[in-house]
């Protein structure tokens, strides 16, 4: 409706949200009434992605790869199977590829065409990952983008950008921080945050748990 467009400009965000809220409620009641969706299933879907599937999954994969060279090799050769062996499978992670950060190359993952993201290991994508700013800039000026996230790379380090154009989903294996040789997998996992597995941060000893 024409009303919808002028509305975006004439009112505050708050009132726009409430209008959308009504529209979504109407849609939900309609789909439930028609028997297409089960309202309880909707609650379970939301709860699953809010509380059960998130970047702790990916951090466990990374920590195991850091601790177990054989597992790491398997992960690099056949990420879908290696990740599934830890119980992380399914939607938006059916075809996993793991790319390893090294002294010579730093990896960065984007989806320029929509917002493809490895849900099975990282959960739902953060807002910035879905933003036109990130999607447009990550391929043309990845070093500037990394700089804005606080990652300053030496010119000698290559940047490898992975554009997720197919159903393959990319997970970055960050470099293991120095001085963690005798750390347990659990301790190591705590150093791995979401952004370090997208490639917009490094794993560090201070590792925040975002």
């Amino acid at each position, binding site marked *: 409706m024409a009303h919808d467009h002028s509305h975006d400009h004439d009112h505050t965000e708050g009132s726009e949200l409430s209008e*959308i*809220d009504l529209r*979504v*409620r*109407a*849609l*939900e*009641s309609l*789909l439930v*009434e*028609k*028997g*297409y*969706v*089960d309202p309880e*299933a909707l*609650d*379970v*879907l939301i709860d*699953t*992605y*809010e509380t059960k*599937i998130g970047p702790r999954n990916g951090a466990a994969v990374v920590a195991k790869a850091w601790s177990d060279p054989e597992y790491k090799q398997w992960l690099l050769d056949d990420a879908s199977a290696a990740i599934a062996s830890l119980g992380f*499978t*399914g*939607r*938006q992670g*059916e*075809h996993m*590829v793991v790319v390893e950060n090294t002294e010579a190359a730093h990896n960065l993952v984007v989806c*320029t*065409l*929509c917002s493809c993201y490895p849900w099975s290991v990282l959960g*739902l994508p953060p*807002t*910035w990952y*879905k*933003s*036109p*700013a990130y*999607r*447009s800039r990550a*391929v*043309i000026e*990845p*070093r500037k*983008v990394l700089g*804005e996230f606080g990652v300053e790379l030496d010119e*000698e*380090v*290559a*940047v*490898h*950008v992975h*554009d997720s*154009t*197919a*159903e*393959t989903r990319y997970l970055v294996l960050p470099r293991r921080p120095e001085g963690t040789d005798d750390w347990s997998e659990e301790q190591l996992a705590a150093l791995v945050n979401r952004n370090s597995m997208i490639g917009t941060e490094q794993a560090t000893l201070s590792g*925040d748990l975002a």
Partner: protein
Amino acid sequence: MNSAHDLGGMMGFGSIENDPADPNFHAQWEKRVLALTLAAGATGSWNIDTSRHARESLPPAHYLSSSYYRIWLDGLEKLLLNTGLVNEQELAEGKQLIPPKPIARVLKADGVLPAIMAGSPYDRNTETEQKFAAGDAVTAKNIHPQTHTRIPRYVRGKQGVVDKIHGCHVFPDSNSQGLGEDPQWLYRVKFKAREIWGAEHSAKDLIFVDMWEPYLE
């Protein structure tokens, strides 16, 4: 289609707002839209490529000025209308006015986790032989499909090298149009950043793009 969703290399969107405290949802309705989209998708009335096409064929100005879940909401309503699961008047009133159409299944609460964990793999067996091998030089075709495609504009006409063969996967250009899965070989192709963006870019930097065989020559 050459629309607003194909963002790679565009300029003017400003800095990236990376707030670590930023929640995944900014309003209750966003959660419901996520869940409604997944549950409606589970009815089997369309596929992932149809639903991407529904979102990216929104008018460009609207696409670029809408939030992520607003785009999902608009895309979902479009899919429901296109498949005849609901009509315009029902959407406007939020009430059933015509009988429901038969659907393949209804996702129940206890089926959610198994469905998520099972996912839907997109690789397919094929009798066809792959045309390219790892290490082959390839060129992304200079093509401009009118409907859904996953070849970004920024690689078209550019030269790269086959880096890895993923297998044979459902072809989105066909699947999105209801023309069948038409599985095609899928390659990871490596492009030099300089080949795409010009000589001022680092000679070391690379861009990897997953591309189906019909996109390559």
